[in-house]
């Protein structure tokens, strides 16, 4: 596979690793937040931590769309499938996320709701065409990467005059979330992690370009490297961030230049603009209400808006108590700090969203670094007991 295997080369990885070790200043620490779940996954799957020194730390951000969907919106989706009897289509990871009372789209499917996993909005459209007597709702989630395919599906449905297709829109915007984290008005300063830089979104940036991150260097004085999702991309980006820090530079650099430009995909951006408009605010699991952080379907396309078409009931949605996802998504806690981790909460029986998606922090720690994490938890516990 061209453009894949080259970026997983072991010899190059060792070179980059050696450079990082050499250039990282042993007397300080480097805390870099990878916003994207894609980076989180790559770091864990390839064991990137083992190739960087201990003072280079990855802080996992809220960049897993499955993880940050507030439980209320998921309960709404379950209501669409159950009470309104629609064919509810969504991407695979979304199906296992627990909503209120630990019910997921998968568990209501097991009880008879018509929930279907799709690989593309094209499939959802096709399901609508083939079931003209059923309402088909696509549960649209994801960042700027996933938004254009949803926009295209809505335009296609409009062009075809499909009357049984709509989108339950939960598309969210990365720059707003990053800004929110840095503003962090609600974070206890003692808890707050100092961030020395950002691994910038990879595939999101192919759509929106690197320009939207420039406020990070300009306003917040944080180094940013737009980074690819392959392990060598991550290593190289870390090296670039270390160099910015060491040199006192604060820039938006683009490691992922093979696909990301400063302007991004303007055709896709225009299409998104045509179909969607900014929501004044949207709730993110973990972050709370974030201003101008999500998209809604424009009134002109209201016929394809599931929120307009279906009467969604008021509901009190409840997170599992003592699930630390909110703090983890803000980067202020790690999975090991959750007492449910690995105990009652596992990917087969997730209590929080971070344990579901392979891009969620808890899932990544469980799946790829369970031995170390459980050992650390045991150590923490022993220390706490000693202290008490």
């Amino acid at each position, binding site marked *: *596979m*061209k*453009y*894949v295997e*080259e*970026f997983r080369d072991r010899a*190059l990885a*060792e*070179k*980059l690793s*050696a*450079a990082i070790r*050499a*250039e990282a200043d042993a007397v300080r620490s480097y805390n870099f937040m990878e916003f*994207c*779940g*894609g980076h989180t996954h790559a770091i864990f799957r390839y064991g990137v931590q083992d190739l960087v020194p201990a003072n280079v730390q990855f802080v996992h951000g809220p960049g897993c*769309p*499955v993880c940050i969907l507030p439980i209320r919106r998921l309960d709404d989706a379950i209501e669409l499938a159950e009470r309104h009897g629609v064919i509810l289509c969504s*991407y695979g*990871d979304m199906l296992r996320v627990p909503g209120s009372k630990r019910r997921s789209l998968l568990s209501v499917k097991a009880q008879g709701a018509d929930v279907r996993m799709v*690989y*593309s*909005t*094209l*499939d959802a459209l096709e399901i609508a065409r083939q079931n003209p007597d059923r309402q088909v709702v696509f549960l649209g*989630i*994801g*960042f700027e*990467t*996933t938004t*254009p*395919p949803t926009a*295209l599906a809505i335009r296609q449905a409009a062009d075809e005059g499909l009357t049984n297709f709509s989108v339950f829109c939960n598309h969210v915007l990365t720059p707003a979330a990053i800004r929110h984290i840095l503003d962090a008005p609600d974070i206890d300063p003692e808890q707050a992690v100092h961030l020395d830089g950002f691994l910038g*979104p*990879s*595939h*999101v940036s*192919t*759509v929106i370009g690197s320009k939207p991150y420039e406020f990070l260097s300009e306003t917040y004085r944080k180094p940013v490297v737009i980074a690819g*999702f392959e392990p*060598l*991309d991550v290593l*190289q980006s870390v*090296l*670039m961030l270390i*160099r910015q820090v060491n040199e006192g530079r604060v820039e938006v650099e683009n*490691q*992922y*230049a*093979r*696909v*990301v430009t400063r302007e*991004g*995909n303007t*055709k*896709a951006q225009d*299409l998104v603009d045509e179909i969607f408009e900014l929501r004044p605010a949207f709730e993110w699991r973990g972050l709370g209400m974030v201003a101008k952080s999500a998209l809604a379907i424009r009134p002109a396309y209201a016929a394809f808006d599931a929120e307009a078409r279906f009467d969604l009931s008021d509901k009190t949605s409840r997170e599992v108590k003592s699930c630390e996802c909110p703090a983890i998504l803000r980067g202020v806690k790690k999975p090991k700090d959750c007492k449910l981790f690995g105990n009652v909460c596992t990917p087969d029986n997730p209590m929080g969203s971070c344990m579901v*998606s392979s*891009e969620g922090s808890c899932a990544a720690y469980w799946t790829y670094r369970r031995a170390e994490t459980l050992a650390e938890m045991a150590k923490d516990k022993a220390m706490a007991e000693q202290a008490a």
Partner: protein
Amino acid sequence: MCLAIPALVTAVLADDMATVSLGGVVKTVSVALLDEVAVGDYVLLHVGYALHKISEEEAERTLAMMAEGGLLQAELDEIAGDAA
């Protein structure tokens, strides 16, 4: 969620569709989000849509930088010194 992979365009079809190959695996995808696309292009594929073309030139530059980056700054300085 943002899973996307590079694929080679092997045929451009009607209705903004194209056939792509990923290391021998062939799939029909939408190229409606791209301005133009030609056989031989590499594109980044996400949930059935091509999101962006891949620049061969930039990819090679990145790999070259990696090989370089793998050198310690000190060595780089040395090389620079040697050359000077």
